């Protein structure tokens, strides 16, 4: 059973934060995409500095935790404004 605080934190992330990237740190190794449980191609976003605005993203943070070069982080949702459809 998941920790209610974790759940709360996740809801907040879904509402207020998106996975954000710094392309200059990215070496396109693909660990992020490989570990995404939903199958989102995170690498294709990270290499161009795009935020993940895919509605399937569950903000699990797996890509952020696995990235060996700290390319990804949860950033404020306003950073995503330009990338939103």
């Amino acid at each position: 059973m998941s920790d209610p605080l974790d759940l709360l934190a996740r809801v907040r992330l879904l509402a207020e934060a998106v996975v954000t990237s710094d392309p200059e740190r990215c070496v396109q190794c693909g660990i992020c995409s490989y570990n995404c449980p939903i199958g989102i191609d995170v690498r294709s976003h990270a290499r161009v500095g795009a935020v993940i605005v895919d509605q399937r993203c569950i903000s699990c943070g797996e890509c952020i935790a696995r990235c060996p070069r700290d390319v990804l982080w949860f950033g404020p949702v306003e950073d995503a404004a330009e990338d939103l459809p």
Partner: protein
Amino acid sequence: MRHVIVGSGAAGLAAAEAIRARDGVAEIVMVGREPHAFYSRPGLAYLLAGTVPDKQVFIRGRDEIAALRLDRRTDDARQLDLARRELHLAGGAVVPWDRLLLATGAAAIPPSFPGAELDGVVKLDDLDDVRNLIARAGGAKRAVVIGGGPTAIELAEGLRARGVEVHYLLRGARFWAHVLDPVESQQVEDALVAHGIALHHQTQVARVVGHRGKVAWVETTAGDTIKCDLVAVAIGVAPRLELARQAGLSIGRGVRVDHRFQTSAEHVYAAGDVAEVRDPDTGEGVVDSLWSTALAHGAIAGTAMTGAPAGYRRPPSLNVTRLGAITITIIGAVGQPDADDDLVTIARGDSLSWRARPTAWTLTGDDPARRVRVVVGPRHLVGALVMNDPAAARALTRLVRHRVDLSALRAALDADPPGALARLIELGAAAGAP
């Protein structure tokens, strides 16, 4: 217009993408000995360690590659004829060009110790090397790793992750001594030991001894013998300059280029690890062996080749690397006065500019797991090295990149170094996008 790109690494790919983005009809011919689709060279370390499968290292989908409409030729470029504007390939073909880019990259420097030719002396330079390493690791009990910089660590950790007993021989007293300070070296070495890697300081290979043509053991200059199946070598890389040299281009540490990446010959460009770029601060020619730098070179060179306005001012070199499970961000000049005997040249994931030792002072934080070292010049931050603290790394990268004027803060920084570090990170965090 026919563009010919020699090399299919990061710079070559970025150039091809830049050309195609601006010119839908130009011919783009890409020539290189690499037989594989575009892959992440830094990602090979994770393939070796088993963190990702083989298919994951390829960085462009079929549709993206098809959209580039490249005429890709797997062949060695042997001769560059400037007068006739022709490139001669080893297979006999002659390729005419209007604009030519040398993106030949850098190659691992072969070792010179006796026994270097034996089967089982290996390197980590390209995808075939890693596939070879993976195949050999399955039957290997023990490996000796020689060299320095990130690639030596990638070899040691990758082989260890595959169950091989690893002995890492360091010529000097500590790891990567001209970039890391003694505490940082110690942190990385402790992490390696924690992963089960045996370190041998101040130890050199006297010779590698074989049995029936295969590596059998290593004899050290101290007189020790280490029985092993593999000897993995990472003593540095050198730009592949043969073609440029043969064509008579101006060469220093690499092929000298101007701010548009044009070489000393009109319509001939060079980018990536092979290019020597002028550092705007020191005026010196610098070579880097960094993925993001090669991409930036290639994108600007490709743009310039189409005739579009393009110019490059070399920024402070940035790289992020995972050494002994510690994520280390290095930006700008963080050099140490110590020499590094384990590298004969630059390593992959390395920049000559990091070795610069500016007139500056250093602040170091107290948290050993999240260590931050900054080098502060008279007016601005000239370099930073951050361990395991991505927010601090991003903040300090901004300060170095944008040359944020810190002169008003200098007195406060001098008076309270630990507090100063926190203030610098806050200042960088407030500075916005990277």
